[in-house]
Each structure stands twice: as structure tokens, then as C-alpha cells.
């Protein structure tokens, strides 16, 4: 068996280091709007960071490469936007509904996709996501090419007006940090350990009595749910749910963020998401070159930089200390 995809993942930092790093990240993000960083940019990056963390849970710790994660981002976005706009629900309920829709979709798609492994798994998820794309393209409630526009941000719990940029910003930050800690908790739980064991050697995990398919399915549903949370939050922030979020390019983008940041690392997807979103907003005026540069980063990462930014940094850190 060839080296598994995340076997190059570095040893994790000690628990204390993790907590300190998380606290530093939380403080930096909490102060960001006051030091002149454009809040909309950070909110966008946070939504994608959560999306990439959810994806990394499946790829980096479960060893399953889904090439169709856009369907979870997009489905939750559409359901959330529809609930907030057409049913007039409060944002938190709309987000919960969107997230649940992705969880349900994740359960169905996951049950199908884990019947095949490796490359087939990637192709199946990609094909199902493309099917969802065509369904959303034709379904009347999504308004096709236009998407669901002018989604009201509403009042959080009926009290806090999210039209206020600061209220919106800290809501997104709170959602991101809670989900981030939740993912950290999953990875370091007994469930996460079994998942890693299955990634490294599935037959052995099965021989030890673990129902590998069940663990993979649970990991898939968790990942789909958290990706849905990212999509639903994004729909409220940008007041828009559109086909862009269900297209296969979005699935490729989340793979890239995770790969660039470092798959199988806790902070990698966050770093990757911020770098890619920054790059895209900087390069937006160069038109088609964005695709070319994105593709080039992919190629370079795969050929020469498989550990990603965070992976390389922590490998360097452990080298200098020893």
C-alpha cells in the first residue's frame, strides 16, 4: 500500500501549544476590525476556513477525498437563504435548517460513496455534486442563474440586528470558533483516533472489531454538516445563495485551501483559506489568470509542497528543537 494521503502529516503540537495557538487566533480575529482589516474580507475567509476545516476532517483524518463538497456548502446556503427570505425565519433558525439539510444530504451521499474507495470515492462525490448542481439549476426555488438575492440578515434570536456590521462580524467569529473547537474535539476523541486508524490501515482496524464503514459514514456526515454550517452562515453574511457555491470549481477550491494550508493539520485549512481568499481578491482584476494561478498552486503543492504551509512550519519547528 502506498503512503496514505495524510501520512506525511506532522506530529501534532502538545495540547497546551494548541490551546495557546487557538487563543492567539481568537484574539487576533477579535481585534481584526479595529486595526483596519476589512471585516467583509475576514468574514468571507472565516466561512471558507470553516468549510476547509470541515473538508479536512474527512480528508486529513479520514483519508477520504471528496471532490463534491460544494454540494453541502451550496445546499445549506440555498435552504438557509430560502428560510430567511421566504419564510421570514430568524437567522439562527435559518442557519440551523440549512445545516440540517446538508447533514441529511451528507447521510444519503455518504452511504452511497463509501461503497467505493480511493479514486472511485472522489469520482462518485464529484458526480453526485454535479447532479445536485443541475437540480439546483432547474429547480424554481433557487431562481437559477440569479440565485436567491437580497436575503435579509434579520435579528439574531429576535434581538440583535445583524445589519450592524460588528454584530454580524462577531456572530460569524463565534460560529467559526465554536465549530473549530468542535472539530478539534472530534479529532482528539476516541472516535477521531479510530478514524485515523482506519485511514492508516483499514483491514487492521476491521480486524480489531471496528465497523470501518460506520466510522467513515459518521465522519462524512459530520464533515457535510460543518460544511453546511459554513454555507448557511455565508448565505446570511453575503445575503446571497447562488450556483457558484454548488459548482465543481468550489469543490476544487476547498481541496486547494486544505492542500496549501496543510492537510491533516488543525490550523492548515484556516491558513489555506485566508491565503486563497486574499489571493483571489487581490487577483480578481486579472480575470482568467486566477484559474491559471490556482491551478499552478495545485501543481506546485502536489509536486513539492505536500505538507502545506502549516505542515512545513511544524516540521521545521520540530527539526530546530531536536
Amino acid at each position, binding site marked *: 500500500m*502506498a503512503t496514505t494521503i495524510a501520512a506525511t502529516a506532522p506530529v501534532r503540537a502538545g495540547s497546551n501549544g494548541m490551546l495557546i495557538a487557538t487563543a492567539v487566533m481568537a484574539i487576533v480575529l477579535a481585534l481584526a476590525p479595529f486595526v483596519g482589516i476589512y471585516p467583509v474580507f475576514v468574514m468571507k475567509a472565516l466561512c471558507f476556513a470553516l468549510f476547509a476545516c470541515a473538508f479536512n476532517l474527512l480528508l486529513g483524518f479520514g483519508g477520504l477525498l471528496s471532490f463534491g463538497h460544494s454540494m453541502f456548502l451550496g445546499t445549506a446556503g440555498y435552504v438557509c437563504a430560502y428560510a430567511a427570505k421566504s419564510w421570514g425565519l430568524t437567522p439562527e433558525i435559518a442557519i440551523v435548517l440549512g445545516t440540517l439539510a446538508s447533514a441529511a444530504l451528507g447521510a444519503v451521499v455518504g452511504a452511497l460513496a463509501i461503497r467505493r474507495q480511493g479514486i472511485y470515492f472522489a*469520482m462518485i462525490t464529484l458526480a453526485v455534486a454535479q447532479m445536485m448542481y*443541475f437540480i439546483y439549476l432547474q429547480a424554481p426555488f433557487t431562481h437559477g442563474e440569479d440565485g436567491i438575492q437580497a436575503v435579509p440578515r434579520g435579528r439574531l434570536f429576535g434581538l440583535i440586528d445583524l445589519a450592524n456590521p460588528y454584530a454580524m462580524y462577531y456572530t460569524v467569529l463565534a460560529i467559526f470558533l465554536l465549530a473549530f473547537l468542535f472539530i478539534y474535539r472530534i479529532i482528539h476523541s476516541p472516535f477521531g483516533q479510530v478514524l485515523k486508524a482506519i485511514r492508516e490501515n483499514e483491514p487492521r482496524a476491521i480486524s480489531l472489531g471496528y465497523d470501518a464503514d460506520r466510522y467513515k459514514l459518521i465522519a462524512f456526515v459530520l464533515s457535510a454538516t460543518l460544511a453546511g454550517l459554513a454555507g448557511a452562515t455565508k448565505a446570511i453574511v453575503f445575503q446571497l445563495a447562488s450556483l457558484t457555491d454548488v459548482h465543481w470549481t468550489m469543490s476544487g477550491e476547498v481541496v486547494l485551501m486544505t492542500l496549501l494550508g496543510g492537510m491533516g493539520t488543525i490550523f492548515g485549512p484556516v491558513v489555506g483559506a485566508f491565503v486563497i481568499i486574499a489571493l483571489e481578491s487581490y487577483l480578481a482584476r486579472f480575470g482568467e489568470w486566477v*484559474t491559471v494561478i*490556482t491551478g499552478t498552486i495545485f501543481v506546485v503543492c*502536489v509536486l513539492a509542497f505536500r505538507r502545506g504551509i502549516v505542515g512545513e512550519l511544524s516540521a521545521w519547528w520540530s527539526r530546530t528543537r531536536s
Partner: protein
Amino acid sequence: MQALFGQLLIGLINGAFYAMLSLGLAVIFGLLNIINFTHGAQYMMGAFIAWFLLNHVHIGEWQLGYWSALLIAPIVVGAVGVVIERTMLSRLYKLDHLYGLLLTFGLALVIQGLFRHEFGSSGMPYQMPSQLQGGLNLGFMFLPIYRAWVIIASLIVCLSTWYVIERTKLGSYLRAATENPALVQAFGINVPRMITLTFGFGVGLAALAGVMAAPIYQVNPLMGADLIIVVFAVVVIGGMGSIMGSILTGFGLGVVEGLTKYFYPEASNTVIFVVMVIVLMFRPAGLFGRER
């Protein structure tokens, strides 16, 4: 009735392209164990080379048209494929196969981005070769000659590929290397070179499909991007265990798609994916696949 036969014909044409593309994917997968995501981009390159030869290349009075493109495009694109295999893919064989998928996905983005930058995203028409214009009236339907040619030519290409792989000595080396490359190498056969040439061949097949598609569909930088996802579904349905399986599944699904266009057009975009879901439920290894 006319409309039904018309849709069936379009289905067969699409099926011809599914068959040629999934065949190339299957041949590459058999030996390299990677799924070539660049396949759609290489199909597009084939169409562009045909377009370029027809519109921009003249040797004296003689114009390089469709017929020379059928030969030149696969060779050029195959050569590019050989370079990609030698310089990039060959570094990944010892790693998880998913890295090959990621690399070829990145390359597809680069190629499609460059072509879009150069040619824009609107399609360009391609003049049908004069020998294949016109059509035949079969009584129950009108059969454009070019479409008949595409179906027949792709059948010939697919069946000769099947013959070479399943019935010749070269093919037996190939099949042996698919089963156990180390052993075949021990018998003195240059397996790395065989891998390189196989990749070049599979990619050349995609380019050939691209040339044949140029007069039917518009020549467009994104013509391969969505097609390749459908072809992936075709590959999952057929399973990559058998060459004949890929051919039959390709044509069969084209016909299924054509029938859907006639009876329930709303589902024509999704029907192949629905078939994939059903096949996965009852025969996870695919119709012709083996569990590995």
C-alpha cells in the same frame, strides 16, 4: 417518430465520445492507477488543434484540414501527455493515488485558464469537411453523413484498441503489467517506458475525440470541463475492469441520455448520474468491474 430517432442518433454520438474518453481513462487507470482529470482539457486541446490547423496553417496551396488534424492532434497532445507523465506524474507513483488526481486537476485548471485567456469563452464554429457534408434519407429519418462517420469511426477506434489490448502480444504485456509491474519488469520489459507510452496513447485518444467533436459542438475552452464529470460517472457505472465494458457502457449511456431527452427532457442532464446512483446501490463495483 422523427424526433425520437433524432434524439437516439444524438445519444449515439454522445455515447461515441463517452466511449472514447472512458476507454482512454480506463487504459491509463489500468497501468498508472491514476484518474486523469486533465482528460477533458486534452479533449479540448484536440479540438483547438483541429481548429487552428484549419484556419491558420497553409502549406503552399494545400490546406491542412480535418483529415490531417485526425493524425496531428493526437500526436501533439499525446506528446504533451508524455512530457507531463515524465516530468510530473512519474514523481507521484510511490504516493497515494489521490495525489495524481489532484495534480491532473491542477493541470486541467491551468490549461483551461490559458485557453480561456487566449480565446475567450465563447465557442468558435468549425467547418465540416466537404467530403462529409450532406446527409442520407433513410425513409424513417434523415441521417447527416458526418454523424454516421463519427459513430463508425469511434467504433473502429474503440474496437481496435480492444483488439490490441486483448488479442496481441503487446496487449498481453500491458495486461501483465497492470497485474504485476515488478514481475513484468523482471522479465526484461521496460515497464516505465510502457507506462509513459500508455499515458500518451490514452491522452491521444482524448485528442482524437476532440477533433471528431469539433464540427458537431462548438470549439470552446470549457468544452471538456463538464463532459469529463459525466465521463467519470460513466466510468463508475461501467467499472474500469474491462475494455469492452467501457465501450459498451459509453455507447449505452449515450442512448439512455438520448431517450431521456425525448421522453423526459428535464432529466436529461441528470439521468447518467441517477443511473450511477442506482448502479452503486446494487452493484457497487460497476457493471463490468471487479472488486479490488
